[in-house]
């Protein structure tokens, strides 16, 4: 008898989605009910995961694996999704996107991510990935009457389908050359001389790099970020990125652990390219969502630098990085929900000019968030970078460290540009006074965390200590 307890969070989530779907179908104007129900379901799933937090267990012929690593990421994405639900509520209603499908599709993508995170088998992994991607395609174009949003959806669909295809091809090659779809077995039988399997590794890595929008597979990011409604962009910026990185770490740590020298070069290249392109291309942006898109590309570069070390401390630093990255992005996007003039949401960076006089608290939040994104001490973002470079230098990859550190200076330039517009320029646009407690609470919590993180910087690290044992 299989130990079904292990998969209870997934089952609960699935049943919850079905319930929410039923409620949505049978009640009229059911958006708020479904939204509340979904939040409750997510909280319930967090509770279920926490009660079962513990050691590594495998079921279904070792194809499904639950360990602290996957549990940590599951909780991370659930918590951030709940915050997105809370903070984007007002935005969704203003944009008349308040259809009950919205939370349901998000939950479906979360379900897919759960399977990606827990997969110990290529097939289960691919199924989870497809469930996730399918939901994301719909989300990108959810504002279907808006031509930019539809364009974003189509662009994302076409490119993502291509990358999924490559990934699937890689999976089949891997099966062909190693004779197994199980991660553990592949890890044992895969050796450097197996050239075909190395091809497979490259294809899989391409597919995964696409998901985390690392250069040179980043092309979709700015368009999708700009085109999708802000709340969806918020989701895109945070949740799939975290899962993508987690899956990359999983792949590198399990099936590909013996061919570390082969994949290391690729990841180093991807990481450096993302850091440089992300910081240089962001300089000229005028739309804040595009700016954040490029900023997230460069952040993925830093996070991948931790993966590139191939060491446990490197992986841990990447997880710390992505956690702090999520917190920074949650705050920043919550600030975007407040950029509202005469009932319309504004996305131009220019509109922020002179914000510090009109709305000092919002301006101050931007200050903390952007300096933190730039990685200036003593804010949280600095420690994220610090831990990554700690492990990079530990692995004696000095070139990667120096390039990474120099690109932080370049990227500081465009973060400073936003600060400059907010603090130094004259006031132009007057923002509406949005009285929404959940948005403000999100910003407040995020800023509080970032500015007080220096008191105990090892707090996330100690949580992660046993993740890889």
């Amino acid at each position, binding site marked *: 008898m299989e130990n079904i307890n292990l998969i209870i969070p997934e089952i609960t989530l699935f049943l919850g989605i079905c319930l929410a779907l039923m409620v949505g179908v049978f009640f009229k104007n059911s958006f708020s009910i479904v939204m509340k129900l979904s939040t409750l379901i997510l909280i319930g799933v967090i509770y279920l995961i926490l009660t079962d937090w513990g050691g590594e267990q495998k079921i279904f012929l070792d194809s499904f694996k639950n360990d602290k690593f996957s549990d940590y990421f599951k909780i991370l994405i659930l918590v951030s999704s709940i915050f997105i639900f809370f903070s984007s509520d007002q935005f969704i209603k203003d944009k008349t996107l308040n259809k009950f499908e919205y939370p349901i599709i998000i939950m479906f993508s979360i379900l897919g991510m759960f399977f990606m995170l827990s997969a110990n088998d290529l097939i289960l992994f691919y199924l989870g990935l497809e469930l996730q991607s399918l939901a994301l395609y719909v989300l990108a174009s959810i504002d279907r009457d808006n031509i930019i949003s539809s364009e974003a959806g189509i662009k994302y669909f076409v490119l993502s389908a291509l990358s999924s295809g490559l990934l699937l091809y890689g999976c089949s090659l891997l099966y062909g050359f190693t004779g197994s779809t199980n991660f553990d077995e592949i890890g044992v039988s895969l050796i450097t001389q197996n050239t075909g399997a190395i091809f497979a590794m490259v294809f899989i890595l391409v597919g995964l790099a696409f998901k985390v929008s690392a250069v040179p597979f980043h092309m979709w990011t700015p368009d999708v970020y700009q085109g999708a409604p802000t709340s969806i962009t918020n989701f895109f910026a945070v949740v799939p990125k975290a899962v993508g990185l987690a899956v990359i770490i999983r792949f590198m740590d399990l099936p590909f652990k013996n061919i570390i020298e082969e994949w290391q070069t690729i990841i180093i290249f991807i990481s450096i390219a993302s850091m440089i392109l992300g910081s240089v291309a962001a300089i000229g942006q005028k739309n804040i969502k595009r700016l954040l898109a490029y900023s997230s590309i460069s952040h993925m570069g830093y996070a991948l630098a931790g993966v590139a070390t191939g060491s446990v401390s490197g992986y841990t630093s990447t997880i710390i990085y992505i956690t702090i990255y999520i917190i920074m992005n949650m705050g920043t996007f919550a600030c975007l929900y407040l950029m509202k003039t005469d009932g319309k949401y504004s996305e131009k960076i220019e509109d922020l000019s002179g914000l*510090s006089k009109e709305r*000092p608290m919002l301006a101050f939040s931007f*200050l903390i968030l952007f*300096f933190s994104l730039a990685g*200036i*001490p*003593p804010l949280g973002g*600095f420690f994220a970078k*610090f831990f990554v*470079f*700690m492990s990079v*230098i*530990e692995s004696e990859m*000095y070139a990667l*460290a*120096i390039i990474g*550190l*120099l690109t*932080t*200076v370049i990227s*500081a*330039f465009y973060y*400073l540009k936003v*600060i*400059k517009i907010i*603090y*130094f320029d004259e006031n132009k646009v007057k923002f509406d006074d949005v009285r929404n407690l959940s948005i403000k609470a999100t910003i407040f919590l995020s800023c509080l965390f970032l500015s007080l993180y*220096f008191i*105990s*910087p*090892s707090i996330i*690290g*100690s949580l992660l200590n046993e993740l890889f044992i």
Partner: protein
Amino acid sequence: MNFPILSTIIFLPLLGALFIFISNKKNESSSAIYISIFTSMANLLLTFFLWYSFDKSFSGFQFIEEKNWISGLIKFKLGIDGISILFIVLTAFIIPICIISCVISVKKRLNEFLIAILILETFMIGVFCSLDLIIFYLFFEAGLIPMFLIIGIWGGPRKIYSAYKFFLFTLLGSVLMLAAIIFIYWAVGTTDYTEIYKLKIAKEYQYLLWLAFFSSFAVKTPMWPVHTWLPDAHVEAPTAGSVILAAILLKMAGYGFLRFSLGMFPIASEFFTPLVFTLSIIAIIYTSLVALMQDDMKKLIAYSSVAHMGFVTLGIFTFNKQGIEGSMFQMISHGIISAALFLCVGVLYDRTGSRMIKSFGGVVNYLPNFSLIFIIFVLGALGLPGTTGFIGEFLVLLGAFKINYLVAILASTGVVLCAAYMLWMAKRVVFGNTNNTIVTKLKDINFLEATILIVLCLVSIVFGFYPEPLLNTMDISVNGIIQNHQNELTVNLINK
């Protein structure tokens, strides 16, 4: 003593800033003024108490505080010795003066200015107290944020360009230092300064690490040719910003050279001495010549700062007692005198809105009290005996003569050039004919301005005649540095 006095001194201003932030009201700043003056004065008293209870006969670190910070990796470690205490006192002394000068001259968003200054004080004192490289880096870099805002929000017409230049130059220099610090962690196994001091860093690593630290400190000092951010930043910054920049921020680099470059990399420091000497000499002569040609008083003082800091770096790398004590003294003296000169320019600027030399002339006829004080500081800057400026330059040159005649002679020309540009500026501003009618309508300095300037003036003259308290405080620690340096070199020679 168990009371964590260093942490108190570091975080008290932050607490004050927090109070202002909480009690912040629009267009209402009296409570903010009281809070900021109260906290900064309390901090000054605390540092005086610290100085008083400091054991001058002990060469190691005192008042050490240690806490677990990043578990298993880094400890939050504070401590002071005879070198850092003087900078802490200097910082705590300059900040109340800045706050008073802000209250006089800043018209818009005063509360936020006061918050920025208090936060900056926390970071600056933190730099001088930290005994762990990571903590040092944290405070060293964190100071950029408030300074960027001070220049950018309250600055002059080209404030944005200057703020960017200041921020990016300094950041670029510092990231290499961060890489070096992390490397030291893996090479030595700790970033605790006292441990590194004992364990020593292998000789082959020292050269590159020294260069990485140098890149950061050279930008901050600033040394030629990376000094170009300083004139811009000084000119555009508001008076209080310039004062902090000249009096304290530049000293962080001198302190860094003395503490970290000399302490951790003695062999590399010896090896790179010619480089430092060359850059210092160029800085002294070249920037003095540039200063001679300036029309803007603030720019002139900014270039003179570069020249004076050239003396400082020169003195530090002579590795003898006179040179290093001279540099220390020069830093303190420059901290007081340049701060006062910027305040004087601020006085004129507040009244006329101009800093150009040519728009003044004959100021002595209309502002006699101001002119007296101004001339005293001009004389102090050019090193007139009886002011602190003299002792610093004299000791540095003494140290330099011991090492290398050529360097010393070239540096001495700087003293002459300094006299030239300072006196010429004073002549054109204070004396001569009044060719601007605005000057005739000016009022003399008021009580507050007079108070802060006279206090600075007294400090400069008292320590000019009686430098013993300062030299006495730093003596043992400087001896310790020199001793360590010579031991290392001997060990190195024997190994060869």
